């Protein structure tokens, strides 16, 4: 088994994802069967193969560039409209600095 309770908790922490006990039990079996399936990639010799991140790119990458000039975008007010909690032109979050 590649993934046990410990690994799920560790990865959950990396991904800032809360996972309930019930979900852990459900996921562990499923994740292992997916990983086992993915193991077949190891059957291939890829030592001389370059990785592909993007399958299609312009031969001339400069075509994908735009001039680095500032253009108008959303106002501060607009940008805040979907914020769950906002105030004084900012997104509010729980306190991150401990009280002295």
């Amino acid at each position, binding site marked *: 088994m590649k*993934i046990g309770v410990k*690994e*799920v908790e560790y*990865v*959950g922490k*990396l*991904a*800032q*994802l*809360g*996972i*309930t006990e019930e*979900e852990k039990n*459900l*996921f562990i079996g*499923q*994740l292992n*069967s*997916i*990983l086992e*399936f*993915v*193991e*077949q*990639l*190891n*059957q*291939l010799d*890829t030592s001389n*193969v*370059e*990785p*592909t*991140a*993007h*399958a*299609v*790119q*312009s031969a001339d990458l400069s*075509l*994908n*560039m*735009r001039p680095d000039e500032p253009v108008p975008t*959303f106002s501060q007010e*607009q*940008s805040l*409209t*979907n*914020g*769950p*909690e906002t105030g004084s032109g900012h*997104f509010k*979050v*729980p*306190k*991150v600095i401990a009280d002295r």
Partner: protein
Amino acid sequence: MELKELTIDKVRSLLERGEASAVEICQAHLDSVERRNPEVKAFIHSDASRALDQAARVDQLKKTGQPLPALAGVPLAIKDNISIQGQRCTCASKILENYTALYDATVIEKLRTAGAVFVGKANMDEFAMGSSTENSAFFQTRNPHAIDYVPGGSSGGSAAAVAGGMAVGALGSDTGGSIRQPASFCGVVGLKPTYGRVSRYGLVAFGSSLDQIGPLTRTVKDAARVLGVIAGRDVHDATSVAVPVSDYVAAIESPVKGLKVGLPKQYFKSGIAPEVNGKIQAGLKLLERLGCELVEVELPHTEYAIACYYVVAMAEASSNLARFDGVRYGLRVHGEGTLTGMYRETRDAGFGNEVKRRIILGTFVLSSGYYDAYYLRAQKVRTLIKQDFEKALAQVDVIASPTSPTPPFRLGEKSSDPLAMYLSDIFTITANLAGIPGISVPCGNTAEGLPIGLQLLGKHFDESTLLRIGHAFETAGGFTI
């Protein structure tokens, strides 16, 4: 006006002859949504007054004698991961349930300029992760052809809206088959363009190197019309490519005699449901009668494609979905009053199981100690798969296969086994890995009346040839073979 048979050309002729106004056509579709949607559940939300406003503008243009733009008065369904300014864009996720898009996606801006009317935002698998639309956080969409069956996914709402007579066409997004497979399951045409052909600006990202927006329509010609409007380089999407946009509508009329259709040996080996295979073989014979030459080709790395795809797609998804943290938009759950507690509780409450599975696996394959073994290796296998297609497509013009190895399945049939669901994507995911375009066209029905789809894959930026063969196939009766 028989809504289920309406095409873009018919809408145009109704408008031009003054037989119906754009408002009347729009209203007829809104009425159809009211009638059909409670059962089919294709739409998450619909803004009738905005739709009618768009239609009224088309009627105004006509009244003042101005030329009608390409998609004037055409009612479209838009997958709910594509931003329409001022409307909710939920991605069928609780985490974005109350999110309102601030801007139009580039494709929406282009469709708006072309006179299209947006009848509603279509249901989907949450964040486009799934092959049945059962992963929507809100409700399951049903197949209009057989109500106990899935419409496919992830663009299941888009496909069901078109098949169910609630929209003339739709936009979907395709990361591993999410346009083509639901098109196949619902008996409509679905086109995934070449990666970079259509701007992704305003599409909520899932797998950024795989995602592409494309049309779902009733005819191949309609797909050509919509693609002609939405294609092109966009400064807002650095991965959109500056290749000139062809006249797709003109291209479909060219004869198909002499074109070579490749049949991958590895695809037809086994695992295709007999009824699907029967119809596909009949479809291929029809292509032969139309003058196409059938040629066997090799795609030797086919058996590794699903594993490769899921590693890449999950890794990209886990990165893309990091932005949903309860700070700037969407759901917020307070947790224990700390910032990290808020992140975790928000994401736990906001994401469904399939999304969580993919975030966990994606994070795992990118984590220290596993990156080389999984992610880097998958990227290398991606190169091998891409090279397979380059070699095969050097010998033939297009590659043909079933879109899905099986006909539509029943609701709940595969939802408890994620791996079984992934395996059904075998014929579609390779196009996303290789960045090539693909189309699914209807190819008859099973004895029970469930649609079957024929897939054609083409060379980079050669949507024209796919549409051309698809159109010839349709004209020769292939859709009802």
